[in-house]
């Protein structure tokens, strides 16, 4: 897993340094794919499947589609990024400060393993995939919200991209 994490960090560094947007999009697809592999290593198979489908699949297609419509490469930065750098450093310091106080990795006595979750693993509604059971039933309202988020994005994109009145000829689908 260390190797995967190091590869991901390298991918992100490459994304930050590359100005050709096509390469950046490909790199971000690779990043998502690595992330999905890490999730498999962490036993999160449902998450891995979704990250692969969404991060490496849907997002990449969307980005390529948008790039096709915008035809752009990143311009050279014009000013020195001191403010973003200092903000990022401060955030990193905070995160490290907090992360070092967290329960140890894979500690079976950590609160997240002792509280709430044991009941989910008792399989009281007879659904072997606990993730599905929690997602659709115990925390079903979150999933209703999630569906509403997807719906919001879909309807919002219709509102943003709908051709105004003068419908042009539609054909050539090579934008995807």
């Amino acid at each position, binding site marked *: *897993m260390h190797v995967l994490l*190091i590869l*991901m*960090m390298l991918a*992100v560094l490459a*994304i*930050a340094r590359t100005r050709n947007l096509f390469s*950046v*999009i490909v790199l*971000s697809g690779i*990043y998502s794919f690595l992330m999905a592999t*890490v*999730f498999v290593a*962490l*036993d*999160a198979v*449902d*998450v891995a499947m979704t*990250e692969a489908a*969404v991060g490496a699949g849907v*997002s990449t297609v*969307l*980005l390529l*589609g*948008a790039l096709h*419509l*915008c035809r*752009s490469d*990143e*311009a050279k*930065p014009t000013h020195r990024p001191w403010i*973003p*750098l200092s*903000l*990022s450093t401060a*955030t*990193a310091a905070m*995160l*490290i400060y907090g*992360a070092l106080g967290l329960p140890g*990795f*894979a500690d079976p006595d950590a609160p*997240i393993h002792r509280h709430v*979750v044991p009941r989910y*693993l008792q*399989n009281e509604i007879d659904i*072997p*995939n*606990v*993730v599905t059971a929690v*997602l659709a039933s115990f*925390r079903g309202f*979150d999933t209703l*919200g*999630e569906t509403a*988020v997807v719906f919001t*994005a879909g309807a919002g*994109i219709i509102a*943003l*991209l709908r051709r105004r009145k003068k419908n042009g000829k539609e054909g050539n689908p090579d934008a995807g």
Partner: protein
Amino acid sequence: MTHFTYMATVFLMVAGLYIVIARGNLIKKLIGLSILQSSVFLLYVAPGKLLGGTAPILSPEFSLYSNPLPHVLILTAIVVGVATLALGLAITVRIREAYGTIEEDEIVALDQDDFHDRPENQS
């Protein structure tokens, strides 16, 4: 183990954050935002792992399972992330149509021209 995973997560988060706030290209910013959002997934999922545990799909052969609750939360977060990305890209496409560029500096310059050239003249 523990420290390296957390440090890697922090690095990814901060790199994502840096790309969002430092870069001027609207598509690149959105990619940075995705990296920021997706690195948070690790913060939730990694602590859920138990050594010797398996994926939380119950079966008589196993008795130790990794924590399913973070998985559920992150499934939702992934969906929210891609919804945000899609919407952001749609707005970017419209900006490109309206301004002819997706570089933040150029857009700001165009807006300032607007402000001086045609202050609310109605046609």
